[in-house]
């Protein structure tokens, strides 16, 4: 579960005041809003990369407002993917499990399983340089999912992809998030993405969040 409770973010002249939002466990939430509306700041706030001026952030029932990013159990895919330039795809997928001290065979199994479902098996030894846009985003997604986080935060993950690749990614996101059972908050300005992925949709407008549609399915 992702809960934002009356969160205020200030950054220079920009302010987001008293934002609240709730995505229940296992749901796929989509947050829509225009460029510059504060979507990314809001995700950073949930990820612990930005401290809110006031308000609480709760993940899975736990108040994580004061937690450092690494203790929150979130998988974060930033807009540009931000792959580690000097690491192979394998090292990307093994990074978080390794930090958590998983035994090597378990890490290896997890990496291969993820690579299989993300169609990255043939690229495991490659470095980010030379990967296509779609491949890079799949690596970023795999890296975020690798340690089975309770929450997945996606910042415009499909923005830089061409249309066929985007369709593929949408299917993949749908399938993987359902299989991994993670609670997702996906930020986008695309209505198509929202319609195809969302269990619950929020709109961020003029510094306020409104929940405007709940899918019945």
């Amino acid at each position, binding site marked *: 579960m992702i809960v934002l409770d009356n969160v205020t973010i200030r950054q220079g002249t920009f302010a987001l005041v008293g934002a609240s939002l709730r995505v229940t466990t296992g749901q796929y939430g989509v947050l829509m809003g225009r460029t510059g509306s504060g979507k990314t700041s809001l995700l*950073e706030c949930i*990820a*612990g*990369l930005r401290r809110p001026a006031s308000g609480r952030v709760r993940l899975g029932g736990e108040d994580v407002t004061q937690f*450092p*990013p*690494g203790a*929150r159990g*979130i*998988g*974060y895919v*930033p807009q*540009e993917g*931000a*792959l*580690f*330039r*000097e*690491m192979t795809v394998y090292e990307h997928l093994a*990074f*978080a499990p390794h*930090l*958590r001290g998983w035994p090597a065979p378990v890490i290896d199994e997890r990496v291969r399983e993820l690579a299989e479902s993300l169609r990255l098996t043939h690229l495991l030894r490659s470095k980010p*340089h030379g990967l296509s846009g779609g491949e890079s985003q799949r690596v970023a997604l795999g*890296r*975020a999912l*690798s*340690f089975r986080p309770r929450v997945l935060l996606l910042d415009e993950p499909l923005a830089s992809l061409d249309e066929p690749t985007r369709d593929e990614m949408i299917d993949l996101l749908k399938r993987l998030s359902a299989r991994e059972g993670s609670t997702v908050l996906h930020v986008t300005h695309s209505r198509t993405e929202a319609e195809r992925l969302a269990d619950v949709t929020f709109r961020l407008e003029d510094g306020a969040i409104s929940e405007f549609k709940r899918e019945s399915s």
Partner: protein
Amino acid sequence: MPPTSTHRPGPDWPFYLSFALLGGVYVVLIVAMLLADVMATTPDHLLHALSRPEIRYSIRLSLISCTITTILALWTAVPLGYLLARTRFPLRWLVEAILDVPLVVPPLVVGLSLLLLFQTSFGQFVQRGVPVTFAVPSVILAQYAVTTAFAVRTMRVTFEQISPRGEQVAMTLGCSRGGAFWRVTLPEARRGVLTAATLTWARALGEFGPILIFSGTTRMKTEVLPTTVYLELSVGRIEAAIAVSLLMVVVAAAILIVTRLVGLRGAEDAR
């Protein structure tokens, strides 16, 4: 308006030609200087210079002091460059201004300032343990005082060019700030570190002003290669001065070529 334009801009070649001529003068000057060095010396002069013990000592001291200086400069420049590129702290503007001092102040003044510093009671206290002024440590300290500013600049630009996102993602994956730096940012800054190291080394090799004042020009003691050139010139042994100059040119050129190759490879990888 006519249906098809009749306007024809002039050709591009006069522009390129004039710019190439204006810029080319400098390139030609550098090449001419190097050729003059080469033509003024013979292999015999070089071998003879290399066989003299004081020049051998000076080569050895130059190599060792530049290497130690480079290590010390990086030790400072990596953290300082990172802090300047990534953090906002009080009086940051002042720190930045202070770091520009060694870049704009004449090297002689740096040497004089170091000399004065080690005459203070603090300096004399240090010197009771380790003799600095007019001894080998002063050579390293003089090189460090000037070249570190360049290393800091290089590292700062390097870190500014690396997106902080990677580090942030590493933190969400479970790293502390330090862990993210060591595992993600520093490996990506590898080429910048190498560039900073080579530039620092080459710069330290040519450093003379502060060494002249702070270390003196004692043969077999505080004599580095620029000192040798100065001493040989002052006693009129021009051919030895030229031979040593040429040696420094070759070493510096080698360093620059290595930097350029590393830099180019870095640019390709970044695409």
